[in-house]
């Protein structure tokens, strides 16, 4: 399972970087979305996959019998998803406003403040 997920993570990063390098700001935001998902999957994979062992302790016991999955990475991912959602919502509104004001979605034409 790990190799498959590792390849998926790599592909997501590659696609995200590719989209972010395009000129259109819409594609830029799509790239950012893919990037946050790639990071989430990376956390999930690198923390180790333990299939079929939910982190539950049997009633009355103090310790789990045998190895269990680590629930913390999923909590991290959940937090990261919520944050990414909020930030991306902002980014979408921003590109909408930017398009209304600048009348272009081409990043090459947004260079007035660069030099």
């Amino acid at each position, binding site marked *: 399972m790990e190799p498959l997920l590792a390849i998926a993570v790599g592909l997501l990063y590659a696609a995200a970087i590719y989209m*972010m390098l395009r000129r259109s*700001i819409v594609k*830029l935001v799509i790239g*950012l979305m893919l*990037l*946050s998902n*790639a*990071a*989430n999957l*990376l*956390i*999930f*994979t*690198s*923390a*180790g996959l333990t299939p079929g062992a939910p982190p539950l302790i049997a009633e009355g016991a103090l310790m789990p019998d045998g190895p269990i999955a*680590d629930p*913390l*990475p999923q909590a*991290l991912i959940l*937090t*990261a998803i919520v*944050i990414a959602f*909020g*930030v991306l919502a*902002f*980014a979408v509104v*921003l*590109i909408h*406003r*930017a398009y209304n*004001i*600048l009348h272009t979605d081409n*990043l090459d034409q*947004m*260079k*007035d*403040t*660069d030099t």
Partner: protein
Amino acid sequence: MSLEVALPIVIPLLTGTLCVALWRSNLAQRILSIVGSSALLAASIWLLISVYQQGHVVMYMGNWEAPYGITLVADMLAAIMVVLTGMMALAIAIYSLASASPAHEKFGYYPLMHLLLAGVAGSFLTGDIFNLYVWFEVMLIASFALLILGGERAQMEGAVKYVTLNLLSSAIFLSAIGLTYGVVGSLNMADIAVKLGSTENDGLVDVIAVMFLVAFGIKAAAFPLFFWLPASYHTGPVAVSALFAGLLTKVGVYALFRVFTLIFNENPEFTHQILLWIAAGTMLTGVLGAAAQFEFRRILSFHIVSQIGYMLLGLALFTPLALIGGVFYIMHHIIVKTNLFLISGIAHRLLGTYDLKKLGGLYKSKPFLSILFLIPALSLAGIPPLSGFFAKFIIIRAGVEAEAWVVTGIALLVGMLTMYSMIKIWAEAFWKKLPDSTDGASLERGRTSGSLMLMYAPVIALGICTLYIGLNGQPIYAIAEFSATQLLDPSRYIEAVLGGRP
């Protein structure tokens, strides 16, 4: 319970929330903003005193002991940063009374400002690496919204770059956290430091170190990752620019100091060598970029970049004296840089432009303002006896002692080029005659109006701070030395957080 560690986060959060509750009343929000920032300053000074007496102040959230719960830790560096946050908060809050337009106030200027302060203070005080990410995001989302208040053309262009590069940096940071967790299975920074020291997989540790370096390097606007800063900082409202200039990049610098003294201190030949060249590049490109500019705030933005280089140089040399210099430099820089941005705002209020070619005649009509400008400007360039001289002196002395001749030479050269930029602003905005095309009517009015007095007050206060650091630097040096000792001996931090357990 060490309440003082949590207060600098709780106070701005509470103030921001109350400001939202009083959305309709600008007056109430203004009063709350002043009260909240004063309380923040008071709480931060309490924290500083407490840290000075105890060394490390630790608080476990919800009484979950480290490494299981989230820990708030204040060491000397964090306490210094929080005090500076409090000072800047109060200065900007007063300045905003005069500079913020009613339209900005209606769109949540004060709530956003305090949310930003909460994010900044949280980043300084947290002892948990994932919690640091969360505070970064709190800070970022507030800064995004503040930057585009007003919705002008330049702001949109600047914001697109600012948002993209900062989100990229957050994604890299998050990936690095994921890999760290995969290696050591912990998120508490002290715990990571202990466990990372005993891992076999040195290659992966170096990769993670570089990922943290890139992520924080983007936030700190270090070479070659700084391009978003001069493209965006000068576009926002001036009080917002000043707040960003003083605090936001310094959060990145603080994170670098924290991570590369506490966690990745095993292999300095690799990580700190990279940092050294980043520092040299940052100093040079920043100052050269500024030389080509003719807009008040844009010159200052490029100088933020070049000054970041000095702080990183202090970290990269990694000797006791260099770290003292780095911490001293941060203290001096935050005060001076915020002050310069505030002065650019006054010049804009008087003459209606930031363009140096259209400014002029300020020395003739406002000699007092000219002196107020000279104090931070000469301090930034490192003229004795102002604060910048001692900051640069300590760092360059450390460079000479470490026999890092090339970077020391660059640091000296950059000091001179900084002088060039400051002279340029002086000659163009203050010394030369007012160009005929600029309307100088507001200069001629004899008495300064009440709102202008509000803009002067923080500038005068920060100028006095600069003079104080310069003329009586011993206590400041002692605090910086205290902080450097703590940074060089992470075992005390680890012991304070983990309570002596392995």
